[in-house]
């Protein structure tokens, strides 16, 4: 029920946000094109149903959407929106998943260690680094790394997905070539999220370490390692699952900048192009898709939460 309501809201916003903004997709081919007259504009609008009232356009779009039909792109090649999105999705999705895993691998140990030695030298040093990492603009870090690793000491390619001679490579070389091209972008993604995540892990861990059952476990004479890993960390990881789900929209949003810097053919670049070309169906399709991915991320986080926490697994959902 909740999902249906939110999904309806998503379609409403995706549609109206663009249609209420001034300007029209026909501007680029008509008003800005001296050879097109009002007649041509009218024909163009009729072709795409833009002459209908907005609520009719919305209704039609919604009906097509329910059949999983996002419509055709109205700029450039006029291909179905879904086809265009489908070929871009794996790259963006793959980079996001890879960076999420990396983020967890970095942030969880850091957060746990900071909380365990709270106030110590390690904690204070990480806190400083975390704050700096948190304030680091991703595109600036990208520029610096490109300068350092791409130009001054050229060991990594700084643009594109494959080298020019990609077609003639063996499968192994192809994999290596792809990896090399993706190291920097994935690193930038990770740099954008590890700081917040480790900070979060730290406070979650501190919260858990204050609980009575930790005191009990220590009083029983269990070793620090058992208390830390069996009792504390498992519980502290719970909220992190939720945050992971919540971080989906910023990862997708970040793809616009990262893919534009590194010239990667992903979803972000597609969306940027669509926006610049005022490609209504493609913009709406990407907005819906981005929001639905977030919705899925949150639902998955809920499921994961249930699986990981026996209290929820056994007692049913609580607010």
């Amino acid at each position, binding site marked *: 029920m*909740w999902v249906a309501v939110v999904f309806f809201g998503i379609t409403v916003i995706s549609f109206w946000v663009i249609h209420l903004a001034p300007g029209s997709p026909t501007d680029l081919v008509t008003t800005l094109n001296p050879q097109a007259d009002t007649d041509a504009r009218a024909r163009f609008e009729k072709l795409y149903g833009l002459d209908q009232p907005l609520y009719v356009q919305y209704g039609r779009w919604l009906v097509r959407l329910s059949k999983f039909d996002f419509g055709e792109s109205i700029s450039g090649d006029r291909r179905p929106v879904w086809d265009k999105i489908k070929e871009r999705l794996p790259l963006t999705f793959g980079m996001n998943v890879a960076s999420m895993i990396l983020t967890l691998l970095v942030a969880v140990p850091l957060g746990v260690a900071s909380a365990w030695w709270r106030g110590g030298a390690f904690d204070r040093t990480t806190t400083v680094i975390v704050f*700096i990492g948190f304030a680091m603009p991703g595109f*600036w870090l990208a*520029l610096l790394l490109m300068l350092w690793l791409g130009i001054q000491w050229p060991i990594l390619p700084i643009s594109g997905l494959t080298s020019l001679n990609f077609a003639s490579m063996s499968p192994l070389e192809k994999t290596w070539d792809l990896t090399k091209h993706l190291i920097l972008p994935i690193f930038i993604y990770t740099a954008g999220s590890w700081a917040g995540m480790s900070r979060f892990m730290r406070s979650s861990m501190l919260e858990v370490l204050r609980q009575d059952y930790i005191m009990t476990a220590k009083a029983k004479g269990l070793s620090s390692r058992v208390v830390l890993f069996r009792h504390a960390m498992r519980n502290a990881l719970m909220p992190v699952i939720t945050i992971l789900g919540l971080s989906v*929209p*910023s990862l997708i949003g970040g793809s616009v*900048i990262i893919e534009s810097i590194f010239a990667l053919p992903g979803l972000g670049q597609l969306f940027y192009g669509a926006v610049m070309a005022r490609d209504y169906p493609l913009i709406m399709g990407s*907005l819906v898709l*981005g929001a639905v991915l977030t919705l899925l991320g949150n639902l998955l986080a809920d499921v994961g939460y249930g699986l990981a926490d026996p209290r929820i697994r056994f007692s049913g959902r609580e607010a």
Partner: protein
Amino acid sequence: MIKRKPLKRPSFLSRNALLIIGLVLVGIMSLSAVLAPWLTPYHPSHLNVDNLLQPPSTAHIMGTDALGRDVFTRVLHGGRVSLWVGFVAVGISSCIGLILGLVAGYFGKLVDEIIMRGVDVMLCFPSFFLILAVIAFLEPSLTNIMVVIGLTSWMGVARLIRAETLSLRERDFVQAAKAAGASPMRIIFNHILPNALAPVLVSATLGVAGAILVESSLSFLGLGVQPPDASWGNMLTEGKEVLGVAWWLSFFPGMAILVTVLGYNLLGESLRDLLDPRLRQ
């Protein structure tokens, strides 16, 4: 082997150290933005063809760009843009969030349900996608950027204030006001609002940092502040073009963003620690 140590609360001094560092950073960046025209002898868009892409020197401490303009001057003037965008955008989002949160929390039931589902929907969108979609259709101008950032970042405040209002609503002083016949408007604005402001202050401080980052990202993509006006984002775009030749063009504007965002984050986080009694035990 991990050594067992009693959990120790950091001393008040060390907690306040972050606050002080944050205040100093924010203070320096704000002052230099406000005083920009008096701090350097150059004009931000004064071209000097004899001085293209000069590395940092005593005359130009951050060097000059591809048009011979003084980078230090442009960084200072870019700071004015960032500061302005940060404050106005956060002002807009805080007002929207405050009003919706108060209304949802106080009236509850259907009103609450509608507003909170709206928040859920907005939170599903990658906000950068929404901002881009709208900005591209409007003229990319400073006003539009501020409004659009404000309109897409009120959800956190709304949630915070709603939660706060829900608990304040049941408190004795609110019940007393209600019994005395105060109107809902009066209760909300005179009794609940002043008591719910602390978390808004924290999220507004952190929000300034967020808005500055979004503005610089937009300007970096060419959809924000338009050249020749200086903004840290569009300076980085220009820097990217000559990355291998003139590192200073990319380094200093980014450093300015980093320092400003760091300052607001430190300030926000330490305010949160100070204001949240749960963490202060």
